[in-house]
């Protein structure tokens, strides 16, 4: 299943490395990354494949959310379908 990970928050050193290693530890494959810094806010969007994920989707979402809170970031993972539904006819 494809999903979108979004990371939004104040820019600090090592955000990408941290999120990528968390995903790797849980068996999630990163397919695409785009990132930008708007003013001092860091915004990263990743397209990932959760087919090989070792934990269920809800647990993965919790792991990411918790890690985000520890680093002052808002990290979400959502199934790609929701964006397709809202923005494509």
């Amino acid at each position, binding site marked *: 299943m494809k999903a979108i990970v979004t990371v939004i928050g104040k820019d600090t050193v090592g955000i990408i490395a941290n999120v990528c290693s968390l995903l790797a530890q849980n068996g999630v494959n990163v397919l695409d990354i785009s990132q930008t810094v708007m003013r001092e806010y860091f915004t990263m969007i990743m397209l990932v494949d959760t087919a090989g994920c070792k934990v269920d989707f809800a647990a993965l*979402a919790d792991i990411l959310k918790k890690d985000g809170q520890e680093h002052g970031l808002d990290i979400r993972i959502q199934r790609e379908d*929701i964006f397709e539904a809202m923005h494509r006819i």
Partner: protein
Amino acid sequence: MITTSEILETIEMISQQHLDIRTVTMGISLRDCGHPELKTCCDRIYDKITRRAEKLVKTGEDIEREFGIPIVNKRVSVTPIAIACECCETEDYVPFAQTLDRAAKTVGVNFIGGFSALVQKGFTQGDRKLIRAIPEALRVTERVCSSVNVGSTRTGINMDAVALMGRIVKETADISQGQGCAKLVVFCNAVEDNPFMAGAFHGVGEPECVINVGVSGPGVVHSALKKCAGQPLNVAAEVIKKTAFRVTRMGELVAQEASRRLGVPFGIVDLSLAPTPAVGDSVADILEELGLESVGAPGTTAALAMLNDAVKKGGVMASSNVGGLSGAFIPVSEDAGMIRAAAAGKLTIEKLEAMTCVCSVGLDMIALPGDTSAETIAAIIADEAAIGMINQKTTAVRVIPVPGKTVGDFVDFGGLLGRAPIMRVNPASPAVFIGRGGRIPAPVNSLKN
């Protein structure tokens, strides 16, 4: 591939503009639960609801986490109890409400709808018993919602039922300090697949079990409109339409997913714009964004008509299974902007009545002085029913005559039901009119065949 800006737009809608699925409601038929013995009848109802809806809340929560979209309420609606339990040889229907309440608590839903009767053309024995039980049923239960349909375009208005419901609303308020009335709706042209409380019930033409979804998003529409300030209204209508399309697509996706996981057919998506008391989740704010100093000002009805129509146009394109009420809700106590305008005297019951001609659903969550007579409440119900009957639309009345309170006071219902100022009611008496009883015959526009 979806673009970055589209992804961020969706996340902003969810995190800052209160975009959510307002309710996933499971409709369950109780037509096979009737039994002459009260205990057997209640056991059958409890068993069926708890079996069918066992996984409803858990499934809703799973979907919430996977899509990252809040599903605020998970609810159950059932066949009107006056129909489902009519063969039961009991005079007292309160135990049925207690059974529904117990089942709702077991499966973890916050409201269960269907303590209802459909009496638009007359009463059966079961209808009379059910209506008589409403005040006590709403006093002793926490999660049960009740509704009574007193009129329709096809049948006209049952004015005996209207008069009776005036007394029932009054009695319900008197024995529950007004709280019970927040769970009691009087309808004209009630719909059978409405997922929203307090008026939800599972109609007799519905399947065994069904999933209906109500979307929301006044905050999203409001934010979108801010970007086209000062432009002509047709431009604003287009913005509303596009926003409604997105919100509805999300609702359709969630509905299909819930239906698949629960193994229950998908019924409808209800397109209603439903406010909450939270700041930024208000239908009144949308109307004011369109250029009114306050909701209730002249122009409010026109603005609301445009809003409601644009929401439907966007929604219809987004889902092929649109149903329920599908219109803008204007519940006074549940909308921060409506509360503000009513408290300032800029929004009156008469203006709200006019607004119900162009949107769903009716005079909703309006607090009245405690000394408002049963006849006046009945007459308010009759007026709303007449609007529904003639305009071939659903209308409803959910008013709360709060004991001991008068114009200028506030009443707090708690949680999603919000708080409301007591509104002024026209003091002239309709008692003789209501006392005549009988029926208002079906209007000529009912003769379509």
